[in-house]
């Protein structure tokens, strides 16, 4: 069955990126309990890819290193830790459309945190976030079609 990226998936990712926990919790409760790739997963990766291209248009590794360090400092000790090597690999993977080798499933999931941090830095208005998600959704449909 093809993976579909629905309006609900877009709303879920928008709510996550806006850090609207009051709305997010019940939405997470509606997510299917599955390890299969679904619309949420595809959209989150597509949004991450789009966000990395916006932030690192030249693919400058030094900028990526500094960004990851900046994120870890901003998140502080109390937030779940990010593996910096994994985070750098994920960003490079997104920019180069290559597989991030040697990462655990937990480390691969760090792209969701990085996406949130990238968007936080962008300080997008609601309209800009909607436009960003439109682009990400288009990317997600291409990714879903290739699965």
């Amino acid at each position, binding site marked *: 069955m093809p993976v579909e990226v629905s309006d609900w998936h877009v709303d879920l990712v928008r709510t996550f990126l806006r850090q609207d926990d009051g709305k997010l919790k019940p939405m997470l409760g509606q997510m299917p309990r599955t390890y299969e790739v679904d619309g949420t997963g595809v959209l989150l990766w597509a949004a991450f890819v789009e966000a990395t291209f916006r932030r690192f248009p030249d693919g400058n*590794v*030094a*900028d990526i*290193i*500094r960004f*990851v*360090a900046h994120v*870890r*400092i901003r998140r502080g*000790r109390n937030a779940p830790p990010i*593996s*910096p*090597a994994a985070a*750098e690999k994920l960003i490079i993977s997104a920019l180069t459309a290559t597989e991030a080798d040697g990462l655990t499933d937990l480390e691969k999931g760090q792209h969701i945190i990085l996406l949130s941090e990238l968007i936080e830095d962008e300080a997008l208005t609601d309209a800009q976030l909607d436009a960003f998600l439109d682009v990400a959704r288009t990317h997600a449909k291409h990714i879903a079609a290739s699965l």
Partner: protein
Amino acid sequence: MPVTDDIVATVRAYLQAEQEEFQRLNAALDRSRDASIAYKAMIVASFIVAVQRKFSSQTSRDEIIDYVAAVRARGTDLPELLDPAASERMIASVFNEESTRDIAPRMKNDIQMFFATAIVNDEGLHGQDLEDFLAKARKLADDLIG
């Protein structure tokens, strides 16, 4: 076997990023077991003395993260060679009791040499200041060897 003048000269060349001189001296070093232990001790000691010069027990985690990122961002091959979390732990371990046994010996060696060099460069150590640094590291290395 204590640290020799040849070992100090080799480490000096490395810390000053004199690649040709380092390669020449390194190739000529005594490769006996005791000499290799002394050389390794000098690298470890140079790293410790450099870290103690740059940081202190009061240095925050964030300062170490920031410095490691800055050093790794300088070179195109450094990101691959230097694992950031391992680098941060190695630096912090100079001031705390945290074990770094899980870090591969080759990675440890790379981290020690790169960051000793980076700190010597950042601190602008030349001439007598560099000689004082090397003398301190040599004494520590001899103490480590016992």
